[in-house]
Every structure is written in C-alpha cells, then in structure tokens.
C-alpha cells in the first residue's frame, strides 16, 4: 500500500484516500452499474476499490472515443506530438507516485519499479517524436506511369479497442496506448484486471496534458466480460488484444470478423516491454490512402 493510502502516515495523521473511477470522455465517472471490486497488491493486501465497468460504460466510452477521434485526427501532427511530449513530462514529474503504485501492483522492489516507470516515460517520449514522421516513413510518392501525381499517406484507422497488458501495469500499458495516440487514433482501453491502479493514475496524467476529451478512455473491470463487446462493436475500427488471455483470443477474433475489423497480430504471451519498440504498431494502426490527380495545363 502506498503512503497516501495508509490509514495513517505513522505520525498519527489519517490520510485522505482517492476514489478510483473510470475515465470516459475526459471525465471521471463511476461505473453506471455502481459495481466496484477490490484491488489487492502482489501480497494479497487490500489497496483500493476499482470501478467494475459495465457494457453500458463501454458503449459510452466508444461514443466518447468517436468524438475524440474527430478532434484528435483533425489536429496537426505537430500538435499531437506536443500533447504526447506533455504526457511524458507529467509522467516524469509523478515518477515517485507511479513507482510506488507499480511496485505494489507488480510486486517489484521500489528500485525495479522505478526503472520500469522511467522506461515508460521514455516510451511515451519516443512515440511523441513519431507523430510528424509517420507520413514520410510509411507514405510517399508513387512513380506512376502516366501524367498523374500520386501519393500515399497513412491515416489513422479510427477508434481502437485496446485490451491492455495484464502484467506490466504501466510500461506495458503505455507501450500499447502511446502508438494508438501517436498515429492519430482514439482509444478505449480495458485496463489490467488485477493491476488497474497505475492505469487510473495515468488517466489523471492524460487529463492534465491537453489531450482532448475522449481521445483516451480507460475502463477498469473484467476484460473477459467487456472485450468481446469491444471486438464486435460496429464503431470500433481496430482491436489490440495484447492483454487478452489465450482462451479469449479465438472468441475476440470471431467477434471482430463480423465487421472485418483489424485485429493486431500480437503474441499470446506478454512480451518483454523493456525491449526497444519498433514502428510496427504505428504502421498497423494506420490505413494508407492513395490520392491521384492528373497533371496538365
């Protein structure tokens, strides 16, 4: 349990606990269902209650994400980069808080957790720098045979459903969320079911980093309950099943088939998030648009 959550700070002061809520459309609502469930640390000690999101919360998050997508995809790439750099700055500033939360969630030493948080800051920073380079790296001019100018430009796919990694509560989470945002998409994230608290705190960072409302939405709860609805939702354009358990994968792919939704090809076992990232997620989370126009006088 982190200091702030101790019933008393050891000097007799009773601390004020934080209520953990959902993050939908830039606000922090409780689950409309009123459901919560206790979150335990790696040793089984009570940390806090987290909201247990319902299917209705999920639908509202998708509506918010569609709105968020309109403003975010319409922003300049430079502007998106500025916001993501700001997210990195805010994460850096709250490093200590995150280290405690990650240590509790993942059962790491404070030192190891701090390393993981630093890697998370660097991950966001890395993706922030990508926003205005995606076009030049993945798009380009097509040398067509004829009197036309023709270019291809990667565009965000839209609303992306993300089943966040189950184990890596912050580094894993930002490793899947940052590329969604850097590519200009909006996200509906299902946080790790057993380690959701760093995700809730990340929302506080996102809310204070000029990220437009609805661009990132985070639901705590049970991904096994919610992910199939995310996969079949008609207004979700792509699904990242990274944190979905193996037993759930076939069901998600089947649900996604109905709308021919893109499902990211990710391994069943959670990767080592400390490995340096590649731009593959950015490539997969964009659609290439080819534009032709005749040349003439």
């Amino acid at each position, binding site marked *: 349990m982190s200091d702030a959550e101790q019933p008393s700070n050891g000097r007799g002061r009773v601390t004020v606990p934080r209520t953990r809520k959902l993050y939908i459309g830039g606000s922090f609502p409780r689950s409309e269902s009123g459901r919560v469930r206790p979150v335990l640390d790696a040793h089984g000690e009570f940390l806090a209650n987290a909201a247990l999101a319902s299917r209705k919360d999920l639908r509202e998050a998708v509506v918010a994400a569609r709105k968020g997508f309109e403003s975010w995809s319409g922003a300049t790439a430079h502007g998106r980069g500025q916001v993501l750099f700001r997210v990195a700055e805010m994460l850096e500033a709250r490093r200590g808080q995150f280290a405690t939360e990650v240590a509790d969630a993942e059962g790491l030493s404070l030192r190891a957790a701090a390393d993981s948080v630093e890697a998370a800051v660097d991950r966001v920073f890395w993706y922030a720098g990508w926003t205005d380079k995606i076009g030049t790296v*993945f798009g380009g001019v*097509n040398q067509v045979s004829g009197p*036309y100018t023709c270019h*291809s430009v990667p565009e965000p796919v839209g609303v992306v459903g993300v089943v966040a990694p189950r184990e890596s509560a912050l580094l894993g989470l930002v490793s899947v969320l940052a590329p969604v945002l850097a590519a200009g998409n909006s996200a509906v994230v299902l946080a790790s079911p057993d380690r959701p608290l760093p995700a809730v705190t990340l929302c506080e960072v996102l809310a204070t980093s000029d990220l437009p409302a609805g661009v990132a939405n985070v639901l705590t709860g049970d991904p096994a309950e919610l992910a199939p609805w995310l996969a079949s939702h008609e207004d979700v354009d792509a699904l990242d099943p990274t944190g979905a358990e193996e037993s759930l994968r076939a*069901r998600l792919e089947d649900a996604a088939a109905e*709308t*021919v939704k893109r499902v990211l090809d990710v391994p069943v076992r959670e990767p080592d998030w400390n490995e340096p990232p590649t731009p593959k997620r950015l490539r997969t989370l964009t659609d290439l648009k080819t*534009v*032709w126009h005749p040349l003439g006088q």
Partner: protein
Amino acid sequence: MTDSEPAPWEYVPAPESAGLAGLSSEYRLFVDGTFSAGSGEKTTSVNPATTEELATVAGTADSDVDRAVEAASGAFRDRWGGLDGSARAKYLFRLARLLQERGRELAVLESLDTGKPVRQAREFDLPNAAAYFLHHAGWADKLDYAGFGPDPAPFGVVGQVLPWNFPLLTLAQQVAPALACGNTVVVKPAETTPLSALVFAELCQQAGLPPGVVNVLTGGAHTGEKLLSHPGVAKPAFVGSTEVGRRIRHRLAGTGRTPVLMLGGSGTNIVFADAPVEQAVQGVVDGAFFNQGHVRGAGSRVLVEESVAEEFVERVRERTATLRVGDPLDRNTDVGAVNSAAELDRITRLVETGEAEGARRWSSPHPLPERGYFLAPTVFSEVHQSMRLAREEVFGPVLSVLTFRTPEEAVTKANNTPHGLAAGVWSEKGSRTLWTANRLRTGVVWGNTFHRFDPTAPFGGERESGSDRVGGRAGLEAYLDV
C-alpha cells in the same frame, strides 16, 4: 450530299478472331510443375456473351488441394525459399515478358471467358498484369530496403482465391508480390473464369519456374474454403466480396492465421459545381460502366452538387447512350456481357428493387444481343441514402445519382457506408479536392480522374473493404512476415 443533317457515323463491326485465344478443349490443374486431370468433377467454362461452352475444366477434389499445398510446401523448403532474391527477380521478369509476348492471345481468351470487351482486355488487363510482374521483379532483390527491417521473411505457402472480374490482373496483383517476397503459391481462380490462370500455369513452365512454386487449382466456394483454411497454408489470401471475406475471417478465428483480404464496396464520385464538366461526365460514366461495373470500387454512386445536378445527369445519360453494348470480341464494344447468369439475375433484382423503392430509372436504348447475359447500362436518379441501391455494392452496370448542397454533406454521404475502397472528386479547385480527399474514408481517392491503377501505387480499402494493399512498397507487407 444535300441533307442539312449529316448522317450519324455508322459503326462497322471490328471483330477480333476467337481463334486467337488458342482455346483447348480441356484445361487441367497445375500441381508441382505438371498438368493433371484432378480427382474432382469436371466442369465447363461458359462464354457469357453467347452462353456457349468454351472448354471442359478439370475438377479439384480435396485430395488435390492437399497435393497442391504439399507441392508448394516442398518447393518453398527445397527450391524457392533459399533462392537468392536476384534469381527470383529474373523468374518474375520472365513471366512479365511471357505475358507481354502472349498478350493478344490472353486478351482474347480473357474476353471470351469473362465477357469483358476485348479492347479493354488488350489495353488494360494484360499490360497491367505484365506491369505488376515487372514491378515486383525489381522488388525481389531489394526487400532489405522496403522498410520492414533487414532480411524480411516470407510466410511460406500462400493460398490465393481470386475473383472473376479481372482474373489475370488480380492473379498478377497477388502472385507477383507473393513470389517476389519469397513465398510459394497455390492459386484458385474463380469458378466461372479459370482459363487464363491455367494458361498462366503454362507460362510458369515456359519460364522454367521450379516445380511447385506456382500451383493452380480450379473449383468453387468449397475448394476455396478448403484451400484458405488448410493448415499447410501459412498465409491465406482472398480477393472478392465482403460477405465471403467475413466468412473466411470467422473460419480462421483462433487459428493464428490472418488472411489477406481485398474486399468489395461500391465507390462514390463527388461532382462539385465547379467540376470540369466534360471530364467529369466521362469519368463518372467510365467509373460506373468500365468492365460492366464489375470492379471493386466502381463508381456506382455519384453525388452531384444540387445546382448542377439536373444538367449533369442529362449529360451522363447522353454519354451513356453512346456506349456500344454487345459482342465483347468487337473492338468497338464499350460494355460487354455480365459475367454469369447468376450475376445478371442478382443485378436485375437490384434494379427492380431500385424502381420499387421509388428511384427514377433510365436505361440505355442501345440494342442488346439476343443471346448472352447482357444488361443495358442504367442510370437511376432521385436515389436516397436509405435505398438499397445506395447502400449495397452494385457490381454491375448501374449508376445511382444522389445530390448534395455543401461539401460537408457530400463527405458525410460518401462516408455513410461500411465499405471504404475508392472515391472520386471532381472540382477545378485544388484546395477543395484535397480537403475532400482528406475527409473521405476510402483507401483510394481519384481527383479529376477515376479507375487509375499502377503497380507502384498502393491500392486497397478501409473498414469492410479489407485493409490490405497491393502495389508499391506498402503492398509487400501482405506477403512478408513482419
């Protein structure tokens, strides 16, 4: 001449000889470098322009699918997988040259089997098919520089199920990148149009391609699904309707294999009041009726700015009335035969629904041949968003006209479909064209042109049109395990 009105130009038929196709009486499967009878039931391929049988085609049994996948797997392991990119490049180059050399023959064959105008097959399908092989020949030894990291790996055996609208061109679009990337392939052309793929198999022999690198099967939906779900096929690929693509995705769910999907979806042309009218009329007519409208992304809907709509539609009708419909082998023909009785039936029903739903129908007065599957090019006006004509993929020679008042409305209407393959924008104002192009949720946007294809230019859709690409650097990704 004393007449004040000159007589209209008379067309004299300019028929291409069907004999040029070099038709065989029987076409056989191509597995492991040799032609064989196949263990399935024989079928016949029909000329949709005459309803006459063209040839007998060997049938594929499930055991033939196994045999073909095994051959492709052996070829990948022993002969093709370890080959230098530069050697693969030369084989692809040979195939490109052979397609060019036998272009006239194959164009006539393609016209006979599909019903498409021979002029189009000769000027569009064949040159483009060769161009895809030539372009990808150049990629085979340069994959390190394609942006997918050093030494990107192929999948192994690729299974490809192809459509009947552009049999040879879609074969080239899929087979060329698959081979360039180092895969071996088992190809199944559409049941109604298998002939050009089986002649392509002959070109593979002539090119000296190692046995098993390219295998060609025949058959319909059953064989297609058997091939795509075969555990020996590392990468299944399907070009065709969204409905079938969806079924394949369901079937492959949980297998760890994600199919390459190049799916359908009618396209939309947006005509602004300041469009170059002559070009726009031509582009809209061509967009709707090219290849009988049997085109993924055909411009089957046109959105016209309200202030010019009436006049524009009239000119579209006038231009459409001049299209010559009939014998595909006549080099004057603009619109040939619908591909099959089943397709003609489907499109006819959609047209009837359009009338029943209250849209205003006009059909070209051009006389149709007495035999064969023909449909007069048809233009519907007063079409609304809710009508089936506006929502479904038409995939036939039918154009629906809708109107709009503001650019925002045009974009909203164009995007109001689960598909997202292609769109056209007609305006002389560059900033408006690019503004519109930015907002259209399609994989391709043609500004003041339509139906442009090139092997260097990635082509493919968004959302329910499937999100893979063919062509260019991006197109390689479909066949690389990256």
